[in-house]
C-alpha cells in the first residue's frame, strides 16, 4: 500500500494526434481536497479521465488507491462526475439514482441519502430533463457519491451554481474529506482554489505548481491566488528564457 490516493508517474496522453499531457508526475495524499486548476483546454478533463481509467494513455503510470487506474477493484471505490452532467434525461432524479445504486450494489436508501446531500431532496421526483442547469449538475454529482467511494473525482462540479450553493457544496466536500474521502476537484474559478488543501496548477498539459494555497501565496508574494497563478507563469517564463 502507498501513502497516496493517486500517484501519477510520467503520464503522457495524446488526443486527436496531439500531445495533451506531457509527462506529468504528481501525487494526491489520502483524505484531502485537491484542486486542479488551469485555463480552458489545458488538460484537466483529460487528466481526470486518466485517473478514473477511461482515457487511453501513451505512457506512464497512474496508480489509484494502490491499483492501476481503471482496475476492476476500483470500480466501486472511485466516484466520477463528468464535466457535462451524465444522467438519463428521461428518468426522474430518484430513478436515475436507484439505477446507478443498483449497478454499484449500494442499498436503495443510498439514493435518497445522496439526493439530500446535494440538496435535491425536493426535486427527487422531477424528470432530469426538466431540472435547471445547476440542479442537473448536482444530480450528476449525486451519482458519484453513491456507495461512499474512497476517492471522488469531480470535473468542474460547481459550474452554474450560485455562491450559496457553491459554498454548501464545498462544505460537503470538506465534510467528506473529514471522513477520510479523497477529492480531486477541477475548476477554473480561482476563488475556489482557496478552499482546497492542495492545488495543482496546470497549463498547456503541464503541472506548473503543486502546493498548498498558503505556500503558493508566500512563494510568489501575491495576495490572492489569481495573482499567484500569474506569477508562477511569469517565473517559469524567466527560467525558460
Amino acid at each position, binding site marked *: 500500500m502507498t501513502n497516496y490516493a493517486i500517484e501519477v508517474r510520467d503520464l503522457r496522453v495524446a*488526443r*486527436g494526434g496531439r500531445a495533451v499531457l506531457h509527462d506529468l508526475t504528481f501525487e494526491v495524499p489520502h483524505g484531502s481536497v485537491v484542486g486542479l486548476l488551469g485555463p480552458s483546454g489545458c488538460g484537466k478533463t483529460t487528466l481526470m479521465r486518466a485517473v*478514473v*481509467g*477511461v*482515457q*487511453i494513455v501513451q505512457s506512464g503510470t497512474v496508480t489509484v488507491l494502490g491499483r492501476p487506474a*481503471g482496475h*476492476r477493484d476500483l*470500480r*466501486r471505490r*472511485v466516484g*466520477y462526475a*463528468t464535466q*457535462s*452532467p*451524465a*444522467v*438519463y*434525461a*428521461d*428518468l426522474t432524479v430518484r*430513478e436515475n439514482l436507484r*439505477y*446507478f445504486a*443498483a*449497478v*454499484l*450494489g449500494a442499498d436503495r436508501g443510498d439514493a435518497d441519502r445522496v439526493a439530500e446531500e446535494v440538496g435535491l431532496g425536493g426535486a427527487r421526483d422531477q*424528470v432530469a430533463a426538466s431540472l435547471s442547469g445547476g440542479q442537473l449538475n448536482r444530480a450528476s454529482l449525486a*451519482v458519484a457519491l453513491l456507495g461512499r467511494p474512497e476517492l471522488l473525482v469531480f470535473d468542474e462540479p460547481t459550474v452554474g451554481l450560485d455562491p450559496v450553493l457553491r459554498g454548501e457544496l464545498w462544505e460537503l466536500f470538506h465534510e467528506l474529506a473529514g471522513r477520510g474521502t479523497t477529492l480531486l476537484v477541477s475548476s477554473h474559478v480561482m476563488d475556489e482554489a482557496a478552499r482546497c488543501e492542495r492545488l495543482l496548477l496546470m497549463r498547456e498539459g503541464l503541472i506548473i505548481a503543486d502546493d498548498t494555497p498558503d505556500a503558493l501565496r508566500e512563494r510568489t508574494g501575491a495576495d490572492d491566488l489569481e495573482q499567484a497563478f500569474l506569477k508562477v507563469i511569469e517565473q517559469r517564463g524567466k527560467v525558460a528564457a
Partner: protein
Amino acid sequence: MSPAITLATARRILTQLRHDHRTLGLIVGVPTLLMILLRYVLDRPQAFDRYGPMLLAIFPFTVMFIVTSIATLRERTSGTLERLMTMPLGRLDLLLGYALAFGLTALVQVGVVSAVALTWLGLDLRGSVWTLLALTLFAALLGVALGLLASAFARTEFQAVQFMPAFVLPQLLLAGLFVPRDQMSTALRWIADALPLSYLVEAMRELTGQAGLTGTLLRDTAVVAGCTVLGLLLGAATLRRRTP
C-alpha cells in the same frame, strides 16, 4: 457479468420507455396500422396470408433496430456510457439489459399485431401461433443486436437514422420477399444467403405453409439466433472502457 446488474439495466430501459408514451404508442401502433393497410391494399386473403406473416417478423426487426441504435447512441453521446464504464457493469450486462428490455417490448408489439392480424384481418396460419410468437421474438432480438452493432458506427443521431435504410432495406430486397432467392442471379443469391433476414423470411414462409416444426424452420431459426448472438458479441466488442 452479473444478473442483478443486467436486470437493473433492463428495468431502467423499460422505465425510460414508460416515460415516453408516444414512442411506446408508435412501437405498437405503427405496425398494427401497416398490417391493416396491407390487408386492404392486397385485398385478396391468399396474398395476405402469404405476405402478412413475413411482415409480422419484419416489423419488430426494423422497429427494434431503430430504437436500439438510437438509444445506445444516446447512451454513448450523453456521457452515461462513460459513467457506466467506470462502474462495475460488464459490457454484456448492458447489452443483455437492452436485449431483455426491447425483447419484452417486442413481445407486446407482436402480441397486439398478431392478435389483430389473426382475428380481425383473418390471417390464416398453418403453423402454431406459439412458433409465430417465438420467431418474431427472435426477429426483434436480431434487430436489437444489429442496432447495437450499428450504433457503434454512428457519431450522430442523423447518421444512426440513416443506418436503418442502409442496414435494413437491402436486406429486405434480398430476403426473398419480392423475388424468391432461387430466382436471383448467382452473385445476389450469395449475398442474400449471407444475410440473416433471408432466413427469417424463409422461416416465416415455412410457418405459413406448413403445420408443425419442419427441418427448414428449425434450421432458419437457428441461423437467426446465431446471428443474434454474434451481433451481441460484436456489439460488446465495440464498447470500450478506455477511449481516445
